[in-house]
């Protein structure tokens, strides 16, 4: 839909790493019992992804599913698919105590890629980004300087960063500042 715009509307910055607004991304919060086979089946059948292990992201069929908490998943899909996927999940979970809610417009998404990506994120999140400690498929909810955020590393080596929509601009500026080309730390290269 042309009426819908993401907060940063495609902004990019290139420095120590490439910071890019991921544009409109379909996102669903699923709350339910992650141990339940019905939930697993619903997620598998609608997204193609298995239930991720603790603090992991599973990618399949163009979707990804991330472990948010023991009773919450973040499902990422194409923005124009989200209503459909929501409906399918709700349908598949009618018998379960579960909550499926579209949060696509409540969030901002960024990708952070390039050699300096670990270092840039290491300036804003109190998390160990050494290559042996944060690997593709790892997912973490933490803090991006002064706001809550979540991120995962995809198989291609790019970080996907999610924060609340209202602070999208703050997070973009924060990442931009951290990615100042003259501010290299040089510990992960």
């Amino acid at each position, binding site marked *: 839909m042309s*009426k819908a*715009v993401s*907060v940063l509307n495609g902004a990019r910055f290139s420095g120590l790493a490439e910071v890019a607004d991921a544009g409109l991304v379909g996102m669903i919060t699923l709350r339910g019992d992650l141990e339940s086979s019905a939930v697993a089946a619903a997620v598998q059948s609608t997204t193609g992804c298995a239930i991720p292990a603790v603090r992991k992201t599973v990618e399949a069929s163009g979707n990804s599913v991330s472990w948010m908490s023991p009773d919450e998943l973040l499902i990422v899909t194409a923005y124009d698919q989200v209503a459909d996927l929501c409906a399918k999940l709700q349908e598949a979970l009618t018998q379960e105590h579960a*909550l499926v809610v579209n949060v*696509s*417009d*409540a969030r901002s998404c960024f990708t952070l890629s390039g050699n300096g990506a670990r270092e840039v994120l290491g300036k804003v999140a109190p998390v*160990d980004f050494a290559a042996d400690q944060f690997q593709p498929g790892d997912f973490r909810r933490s803090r991006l300087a002064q706001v809550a955020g979540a991120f995962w590393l995809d198989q291609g080596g790019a970080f996907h960063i999610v924060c609340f929509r209202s602070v999208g*601009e703050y997070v973009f*500026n924060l990442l931009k500042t951290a990615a100042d080309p003259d501010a290299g730390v040089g510990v992960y290269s």
Partner: protein
Amino acid sequence: MLSACERSAHMSTRLAKQGRLIDRSKQIVFTFNGKSMLGHPGDTLASALLANDQMLVGRSFKYHRPRGLVASGAEEPNALVGLGSGTRYEPNQRATTTELFEGLAAQSQNHWPSLEFDIGIVNSKLFSRFLTAGFYYKMFMHPKPFWKHVYEPFIRQSAGLGKAPDKELVDADTYEHFYFFADVVIVGGGVAGLQAAKTAAATGAKVLLMEQNAHWGGRAPVDGGTIDGMEAEAWVTKTLDELRAMENVTLRDRMMGAGVYDHGYLLGYERLSDHMPGKPGPRHRLWRIRTKQIITATGAIERPLSFAGNDVPGVMLAASMRDYVVNWGVTPGKRVVIATNNDDAYRTALILKDAGVEVACVVDARRLGGGALAKQVRDAGIRVEDGRAIAKVAEGKRVTKVAICLQNGDGQSIEEIEADAVAMSGGWSPVVHLWSHCGGKLTWDDTQAHFRPDPNRAPLSHDGLPFVSTAGSASGPMGLGAVLSDAAEAGAKAAEAAGLPAQAPVAAVAEDVEETQMEPVWLMPANADIQHRMKSWLDYQNDVKVSDVQLAAREGFESVEHTKRYTTLGMATDQGKLSNINGLAILADSLGSEIPQVGTTTFRPPYHPISMGAIGGEARGEIFQPLRKTPMYAWNDKNGADWEPVGHWRRPFAYIRNGETQHDAVNREVKNTRENLGLLDASTLGKLIVKGPDAGKFLDLMYTNMMSNLKVGKCRYGLMCSENGFLMDDGVVARIDDDTWLCHTTTGGADRIHAHMEEWLQTEWWDMKVFVANVTEQYAQIAVVGPNARKVLEKLGGMDVSKEALPFMEWRDGEIGGFKARAYRISFSGELSYEIAVSASEGQAFWDALMAAGAEFGVMPYGTECLHILRAEKGFIMIGDETDGTVIPQDLGLHWALSKKKEDYIGKRAHSRSHMADPERWQLVGLETVDGSVLPDGAYAVGQGINANGQKNTIGRVTSTYFSASLNRGIAMGLVKHGRKRMGEVISFPGTDGKTYEAKIVDPVVYDKEGAKQDV
């Protein structure tokens, strides 16, 4: 070849030999107090000043005494300068830790009018006898106003060290933080640190080694000795190369271990561009390091000797003097007297002699003198006197004469020696700061007369196990071989403690000179009389002398903390690095106690001052704090929004048009909304989805009123109290389907109430089947308000918004103008009103559509102030205005919202406590000024008389007050004692403007009492 300086007649000068750290092929121009000087790359400001014969570098704090360099590193107490200018000016920079750069401009401090001629010196010359420790506690009391107006301004002006940055200064530099994780962090890049790093890294541990200076190797390259058969410097280079080649090792120079915090948290302070100001990128980076183990290889600091005149420029620590010679090829004098109580100072004698500086005499306080090193010195033809002391260094702006006496005497001069510099060594104290920050304990070592870390009482981490250890001379041993083996062991142990497989430590082998034991000398000479003790400095910067500590002890300040605070010993910007041990030895002696019994004061971070800029990090300007923006933020900003911060959000207070005052704009918005059509960006209101089989039951506990019986499709206003009974939030709840509710909260309540619900669900009622999701930001929510509200929606087309299809206090899903929307028929203004939620990403487009379609209906956006007035005219309460955390629903006449049917809800039990059921509690009423004026915000109504504490009795207060454009007069609400029974009564509100406002108690609803306008 002699340098230019050396050929001149100056006494402090650049030498032809030595200077391992400087590049003599290049020159750097810098200025000191405006005077142009030359130095070399590799110089510190301190070494460059010495090379230019600038002995006098500052004035002391209290007596404004002339002061020169005492040390060569972070422990330097005197050489503090103002550095740079304009937006890069910084006071109190240490010359010894300032790397020289082209164009450096330094200003000395704490003098007026000039460094050479300082009026404040009268403190020293005339009044020093009066200005003893704590003198100001005993005087300046009369007449009373004089403290504030005469004495204090004078004291403040003469204290204070560096000039403050300009009041309007905005720092031109940037700063950042970095999080880092390691198994073992080693602080200090001397040979001990390198050895410890090497051993720890050999186990595969992830190692970070940091060094505060720009160069590695610490003292060893200066002090000499061989390691693994090579010169110390060669070993340092080789070891660095080995470490650099290891993937598991990170090396950082110009990075100081600033503080150790609980659970293995360490601050690293990296100075990236202090040596080349203006270099792009951050100036400082504060590393926030989490590590399993910390090794402090921070070395030791030499102690001064306490003799009369030990603060005269030219008196310097012996090891620092040889640092200046070896590292930078400078000497503070041409004829030096050395005073010592240990063998190490003899190294200075040898190095000075080798560099062509005359050593007039080595005065060794020990009756039997030194060992092998002393012999070498004697063999070199240098005069050595045992059992002798310095009686006094002649006063002046630099050393000219040194009087020698017996150490065990009272200071009777035996001879006077002409000299222009004095090197002193009172022994060495391990740098224990980082060890101590988190509770590491110290033990007194009698043989070396110092406190060293007690390995049996190390700081404990989250697991109850030690997480800090020490290596090298930071542990106590001072000899090179012992240092290396201690460090190797520390490295291996730390790695093992960090969970790496144990490995036997392999230490480099060093050749040591055997040293004769030092003897503690706390006062030189031992029985110095009071005149001498009054000239024997302990704390140079704060001007604390031996006599001051003795006075404190005599006056009963027996605790070391008392003495510190009474005399200010150790409270200067060097935090007592040189003075503490000497001071507490004097204290112990005065009390007839032992040093270990007196103990030390507490070591607190940072080890050495760190910039506030670095602590703040990147958080400045637009990323100072997150600024939360609604989807319509940019539009609002472009259309006159007068922003009001609401938490981290910004909301338009009003939309101000050209030529309007804020007041005009608000009144226009009120009238227009009442008469035509207003739009409010209500996106910040919290929206929580509560779903599950037990959701109704749960909400009945959360809200004071019943929510479980709300019908699908309907809305209900709800109140929430804290468990303590106070009103904490309100909002409209909509029932979405059989097991789903959507709860609106206030703007500030969104995160708070979400957390509140999660807390109860997770920690008290975890058996309830309820899920909550915060969908506040999923939606842009727009209040469409006013008589034309329905018209504009109908024009946009889509869902049926008629009174029949969408009655008051109901909601519907559908499409409006092609937007997928949810419409709530709710009103906070008393007008016909819809709150429409669309997806946030479409919020701006929907707003644009409403503005366009609304043009013919007189649409205008309105801000929070208009919102407030509209609700106040209707007597609706506002959380944060009518409530303040002390107000309960009963106070506000909201009894109807306190369910009597429910057995329990949060806050119910609290309301039955005596004070909450008290009929004397103030009650919400409307207030109408007699003259139509606006009551002052926050005014109190006075009653009769005064209370037991002499305060006027009050009977009420204004909770919100506005000018009502609709009624063309002031309106207000307030809480008044027995208010609901006092309708029509007039009460008085004294303003702070001298006026008293008379107001009649009325019903809070002053506009459309019947509610006819909202239900059409």
